[in-house]
């Protein structure tokens, strides 16, 4: 093993805070995979795992790599660390987590999801109607950020006439997550307005629950008692952020890659709309919306001649694993026809009957994304509806600065800042 015996070139951990890394982390990922498959980042006091099978292994092994922010046996004040209030993301490997998850997991898959598809169709068409006569669209703000939030607000059966206000609050809220200062102030204001708006709805649905998602969360019982109003709000915010912002970025990134990375494959997709699912899958591999997840070790972990100590913070770079030559041929080529990637629906196990490797973009295992089926369907529907109604789509700018993470601390969802497209009708 020459890799292990020769001295690896040094890697300055401050690179993780650089603008260059936000924009193009892939050369650093390769350096990590090739020379530091287990990297101790002393500067940020954390460890980093980056190869496909190591990231997969850590996701699968929840006993050793726990997500809980608290010590399993110590006190912890739920909600204290999230702007959004208490939510499922704070939980590690536990019965409570499984119970919370099961309250809503069924809402985003199977027949429930099928029932929502006509609504997703309709919302997509309505959003497209707003710009179709202009001959051009800024995809991020006029299209991508409009669809998912409307879909979720419909699933919660919020009044449709308030949808525009809701979209506005949501956008302020998301902008407030990462940027601090003025954005944060406006984000918190939007959150409070949203809470005032939703408070009477929570009381009403707790008394007279319907079939909608909000009612379901209101009346769900955990260990024999319902969630508090605060917990219900935390759950809703989580769905807005985890389900809205991510899917929005997914849609924007799919169009970015077709307009700028592979314009030659855009025509393939226009000719065969079934390929939108491939675009989604390859986007989730090549440069997924979320690149990293955090875990804490519950024991010492020996790996590649090193040992991660107990209760150490570990970054699982799924964005790096997805570009691992050990798992995918020509990993740095975006190709919607690649034959070595499982193209269909994702599995929580990360294992597939076709024997191919899956992308790691939804995580794996205990905390595997609950919205995986919905995000895929929604993205494919919204994109194919748009493609159906336009001809000759083109990126408006000759050059595009590309996809980037928003800033250092947000841990951010990746997307282009803006994405102008021109088209004929």
């Amino acid at each position: 093993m020459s890799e292990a015996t020769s001295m690896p070139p040094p890697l300055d951990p401050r690179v993780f805070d650089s603008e260059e890394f936000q924009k193009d982390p892939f050369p650093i990922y390769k350096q990590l995979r090739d020379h530091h498959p287990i990297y101790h980042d002393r500067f940020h006091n954390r460890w980093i795992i980056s190869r496909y099978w190591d990231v997969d292994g850590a996701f699968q092994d929840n006993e050793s790599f726990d997500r809980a922010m608290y010590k399993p046996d110590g006190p912890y004040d739920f909600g204290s660390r999230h702007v959004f209030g208490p939510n499922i993301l704070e939980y590690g490997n536990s019965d409570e987590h499984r119970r919370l998850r099961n309250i809503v997991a069924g809402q985003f898959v199977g027949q429930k999801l099928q029932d929502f598809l006509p609504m997703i169709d309709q919302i997509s068409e309505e959003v497209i109607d707003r710009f179709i006569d202009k001959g051009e669209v800024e995809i991020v703000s006029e299209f991508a950020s409009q669809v998912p939030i409307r879909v979720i607000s419909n699933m919660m059966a919020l009044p449709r006439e308030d949808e525009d206000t809701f979209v506005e609050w949501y956008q302020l809220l998301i902008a407030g997550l990462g940027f601090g200062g003025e954005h944060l102030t406006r984000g918190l204001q939007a959150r409070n307005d949203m809470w005032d708006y939703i408070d009477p709805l929570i009381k009403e649905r707790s008394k007279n629950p319907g079939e909608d998602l909000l009612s379901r969360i209101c009346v769900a019982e955990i260990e024999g008692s319902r969630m508090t109003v605060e917990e219900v709000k935390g759950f809703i915010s989580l769905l807005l952020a985890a389900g809205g912002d991510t899917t929005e970025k997914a849609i924007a990134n799919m169009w970015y890659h077709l307009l700028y990375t592979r314009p030659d494959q855009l025509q393939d997709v226009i000719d065969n709309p079934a390929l939108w699912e491939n675009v989604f899958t390859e986007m989730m591999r090549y440069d997924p919306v979320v690149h990293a997840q955090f875990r804490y070790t519950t024991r010492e972990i020996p790996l590649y001649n090193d040992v991660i100590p107990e209760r150490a913070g570990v970054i699982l770079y799924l964005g790096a694993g997805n570009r691992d030559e050990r798992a995918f041929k020509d990993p740095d080529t975006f190709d919607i026809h690649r034959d070595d990637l499982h193209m269909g629906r994702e599995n929580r196990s990360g294992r597939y009957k076709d024997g191919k490797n899956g992308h790691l973009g939804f995580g794996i295992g205990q905390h595997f994304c609950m919205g995986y089926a919905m995000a895929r369907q929604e993205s494919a529907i919204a994109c194919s509806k748009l493609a159906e109604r336009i001809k000759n789509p083109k990126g408006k700018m000759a050059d595009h600065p590309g996809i980037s993470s928003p800033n250092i601390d947000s841990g951010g969802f990746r997307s282009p800042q803006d994405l102008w497209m021109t088209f004929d009708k």
Partner: protein
Amino acid sequence: MKVKIDKNKCYMSGECYYNHPELFKMDDEGYPIVLVDEINDDAMKKHALEAIEVCPAVALSLEE
């Protein structure tokens, strides 16, 4: 009572072993392995019934 797995139907969704680690674990390929040979207490039966319900492939069943 025993839990039976129909490997032809199972598509390795992972739902059974991630929701009910008391009763299942993943094998090397991604299929579930049943950890409890004979189901005879109520708690384990509850896990089995919930897993049967949650399996998207209808690949699990209970047999006498």
